[in-house]
């Protein structure tokens, strides 16, 4: 019975989270097109539904019914595996993100945490590990397509992900030192009580935050770091040979990665579900609404920043990308670790 309740609760939580994430992914595609068009004096999608609001559904149906093409020279197994390898890690990371306050409710004698699917004590490591697996999808997809553009896109992605994942890992170490834990829940809890307790401001992690943000943009292959996809150079990069649902998988993975990266940024640096003022405005029973709302606001602010950057910046050249990653971001991240460790050492004493 206990096992059943536990499993049932987990399934419900997973369903809700997956539903919300998939819905957000779908409407992010619309939001991106709309925001970009507003910044460029255009209209964006206007045909399907009022002001084009049903465009994601139309896109989904179109992609679902498109012909599924596997090129003659492609490695069929890896070609089919790559989109799944890209999509699954993008969605699996949401398992350890705390969406609301760390409450516990009793249900038929089983303790359930309603706002996190599972609170594992190495949450952030788990996300980083799976994010790296997502890069395999891109690389394998590029190689298996048997197309020079795909291969170049995949190789670029490999180089880019390796150089920028390093910076992400080093940038968050400052936060980990401050909170003394790898669990996303503990990291968020430690930042409670007003914006001056957030790691960004209270922990003086501004450098780490900027490094993380830039690396996150590079990690998700978004402009201005979209070299693996570079339309003007590589057709569509590693996605050149993909069509139909396989292409949709890559597409969804990109947007899911954006959401995941925004979730991590808001949990690690902006206090996650914590409001920028101490305590909560709503009574204790309903305070979780406020927490979830603040988390949502923070995540969407980051997502808007992604669109904003895309509308503003041109693509970097490849050598600029590598130079920036290794010669600027890496020393900054390392310096941040050293300084944070020294400060924490003396303050804690």
């Amino acid at each position: 019975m206990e096992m059943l309740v536990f499993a049932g609760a987990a399934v419900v939580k997973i369903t809700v989270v997956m539903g919300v994430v998939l819905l957000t992914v779908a409407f992010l595609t619309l939001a991106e097109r709309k925001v970009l068009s507003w910044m460029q004096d255009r209209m964006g999608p206007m045909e399907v539904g009022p002001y084009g609001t049903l465009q994601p559904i139309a896109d989904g149906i179109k992609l679902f019914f498109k012909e599924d093409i596997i090129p003659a020279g492609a490695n069929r197994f890896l070609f089919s595996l790559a989109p799944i390898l890209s999509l699954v890690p993008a969605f699996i990371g949401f398992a350890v993100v705390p969406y609301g306050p760390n409450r516990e409710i009793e249900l038929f004698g089983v303790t359930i945490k309603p706002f996190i699917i599972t609170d594992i004590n190495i949450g952030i490591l788990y996300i980083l590990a799976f994010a790296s697996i997502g890069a395999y999808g891109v690389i394998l997809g590029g190689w298996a397509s048997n197309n020079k553009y795909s291969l170049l896109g995949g190789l670029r992605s490999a180089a880019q992900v390796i150089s920028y994942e390093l910076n992400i890992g080093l940038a968050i170490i400052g936060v980990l030192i401050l909170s003394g834990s790898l669990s996303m829940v503990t990291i968020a809890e430690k930042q409670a009580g007003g914006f001056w307790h957030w790691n960004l401001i209270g922990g003086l992690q501004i450098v780490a935050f900027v490094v993380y943000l830039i690396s996150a943009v590079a990690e998700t292959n978004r402009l201005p770091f979209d070299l693996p996809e570079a339309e003007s150079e590589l057709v569509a990069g590693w996605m050149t040979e993909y069509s139909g649902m396989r292409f949709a998988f890559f597409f969804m993975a990109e947007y899911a990665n954006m959401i995941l990266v925004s979730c991590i940024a808001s949990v690690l640096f902006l206090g996650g579900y914590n409001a920028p003022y101490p305590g909560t405005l709503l009574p204790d029973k309903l305070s979780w609404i406020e927490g979830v709302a603040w988390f949502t606001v923070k995540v969407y602010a980051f997502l808007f920043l992604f669109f904003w950057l895309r509308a503003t910046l041109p693509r970097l050249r490849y050598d600029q990308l590598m130079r920036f990653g290794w010669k600027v971001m890496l020393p900054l991240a390392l310096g941040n670790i050293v300084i944070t460790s020294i400060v924490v050492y003396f303050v804690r004493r």
Partner: protein
Amino acid sequence: MAVAQWVKTLTFYEILVGMKATITVLIDRIVLRKRKAVTLQYPHEKRALPGTYRGMIALLKYDDDTEKCVGCDLCEAACPSRVITVISSEVEGEPMKRYAKEYYMDMTRCLFCGLCVQACPVDALAMTTEYEWAKYNKRDLRLNKEQLLALGDRNFPVREKKLEFQHPNVAYFNIGHKNLPPKES
């Protein structure tokens, strides 16, 4: 100087200037409503075309419902894309007068340069403002004389008057044309 440059680099000053530019456009558009999209929602709203727009080519008639075309083949000669095919023939019983027995325009090749209209000595050709001629079958775009005359009727309801002094048995040219080349004196 160098310090200011360093501060600018460290604060991503130039990127922030660019981001300010894009967000200003968005705020002007969405919040302040000062800007409008340059987009024209094409099938729903259409541009006002200038009178000199070079669209589909049409054959014209005189006000007494006779064709203007005298079958001289000059349009065919002027056409750079070999769009036009004229099969010229004598008017029955009037050996001095000719007309286009068959007249074809393959609009798939037409580049709408208007040279045929310029070349026509009797102003029998005109360019309309029609442009929505997408077809499922490209052979539908090979227009015959009837279709071209229908185009002319549709777009130019006011027809030119046939001049009195034009003798029916004499080949004539468009005297009414304003831009005749100067005569050699």
